[in-house]
């Protein structure tokens, strides 16, 4: 091993797979993300929790480099790539994949076309065959306009579309929101499958218990700042902490 390589290796091992350092972000004039720092190790699942308006979705959107909120300060790194300087499509190509809160399946085109659109830019993940194997419901509806799918099916499509890309970091924003309990179970089993694949994931979820059962680590946000970082099990065990920041 030459010296330069050795230095690079040691630097990489010192840095977490994903990290946010002192990130500040604004929606217009509103100061939403107020100096957030946390790390995620490779293959880890982190539950990002907090009350409504705590800045969870904004944090995910900042990582995915959405135009809003506007990041004014701080660093976001994934696998040694500086994300905070990238345009959203370049962040996606660097391996960030957001499954947004409102699913954002594209209406007016079919289920299959929604998946094809995810495979326009490299690097690619699962091919259609593999996606349909894991999501047989989508295979049945492949020719259907994506807008005609039920909420649960749209969520499946949103997750499947993410799997169509080669992901280093999956950002799941409220995957269970607005779904019937039976459908939630179905999506939960899909997310559990994703966990077995070892994809590094940050999950934001109002249903904190569900997220915590799935996650290795928990990060709790309050008023745009981090108030807790630790094991997911610790949050499940600490009633006081949950009462104070999560109200569950």
């Amino acid at each position, binding site marked *: 091993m030459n010296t330069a390589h050795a230095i690079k290796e040691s630097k990489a091992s010192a840095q977490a797979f994903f990290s946010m350092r002192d990130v500040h972000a604004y929606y217009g004039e509103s100061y939403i993300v107020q100096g957030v720092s946390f790390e995620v190790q490779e293959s880890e699942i982190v539950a990002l929790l907090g009350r409504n308006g705590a800045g969870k979705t904004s944090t995910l959107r900042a990582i995915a480099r959405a135009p809003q909120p506007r990041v004014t300060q701080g660093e976001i790194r994934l696998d040694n790539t500086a994300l905070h300087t990238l345009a*959203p*499509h370049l962040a996606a190509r660097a391996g960030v994949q957001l499954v947004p809160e409102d699913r954002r399946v*594209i209406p*007016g*085109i079919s289920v299959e*076309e929604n998946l094809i659109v995810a495979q326009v*830019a490299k690097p690619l993940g699962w091919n259609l065959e593999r996606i349909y194997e894991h999501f047989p419901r989508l295979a049945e509806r492949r020719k259907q306009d994506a807008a005609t799918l039920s909420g649960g099916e749209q969520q499946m499509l949103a997750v499947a579309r993410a799997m169509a890309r080669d992901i280093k970091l999956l950002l799941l924003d409220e995957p269970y929101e607005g779904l019937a309990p039976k459908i939630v179970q179905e999506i939960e089993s899909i997310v559990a499958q994703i966990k077995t694949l070892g994809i590094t994931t940050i999950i934001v979820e109002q249903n904190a218990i569900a997220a915590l059962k799935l996650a290795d680590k928990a990060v709790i946000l309050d008023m745009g700042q981090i108030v807790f970082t630790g094991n997911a099990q610790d949050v499940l065990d600490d009633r006081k902490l949950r009462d104070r920041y999560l109200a569950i």
Partner: protein
Amino acid sequence: MSGNLVNALTLQVLTGMQLGAVYALIALGLTLIFGTLGVVNFAHGALYLIAAYLAVFISTELGFFAAVFIVPALLFMVGWGLERGLIKSFYSRPHTDQILVTFGLALVTEEGLKWAFGSNNIPFPLPQWGTGIVKLQEYLPFLDGFVAFPKWRLVMILVALTVISLLFVLLKFTRFGLVIRAGMRDSGMLRFLGVNISQRFAVVFGMGALIAGVAGVFGGPITQVSPDVGMHLLVPSFLVVVIGGMGSLGGALLSSLILGMALSFTAEYSAVQQIIVYLVAVIVLLVRPRGLFGKQGVFE
């Protein structure tokens, strides 16, 4: 139905299609740009104008067929350059700002051409093969007696149909088209999927300009080539877009046909013809405020 009436109706319908064809080509570009980029491009008439002027000069120097290939290609570059150089900075600004800057561009183009070539019409001679008339009764057996229609106007209709079909195939059956259609619905999500949609939208702007280029080459001999033609065409073409529904390509086609017919069938009553376009707009918008195929949330 008497033979004369059938003859007259056929001519009116063809004239309507021809008038609609010019509007359709301009409105297609307008609505394509609006639907993808959300920009109301008031400079679109100026693009037609530039194309018509270029076509006159190139066809005089190099022949008409050279103009058919060169002008749309040049216009594509003009459109692409315009988007990358100027319009791009206006996406996040209000529609009124976009209208002001594109309208300003239109005025600058118009006055610039006036300054360079004068305000008079520049003769745009038809190519030899396009002159003369077509004896319609030879092709349409239901016509009675001698029914003639200018050959160039038929060419115009055919060109418009060809452009519309090509655009339809491009948008409906290619991967590029799929990305554009998806981008029209949710460009932000496409970015999250790694697609550099802005780059493709610049190509769309170029395509809109290219279509205006085709319209300028074939429409120039019909609409005349003078600095005010751009604005004269822009207003009805913009109404075509509004009547069809902002951002709907199908709507733009249907409404250009409706307007062409309305103009053709009122040709004998010039007072009515002058207001018919606006009358149709008022009626359609009263019944369907979003236009024929307008979608909820677009430009609202």
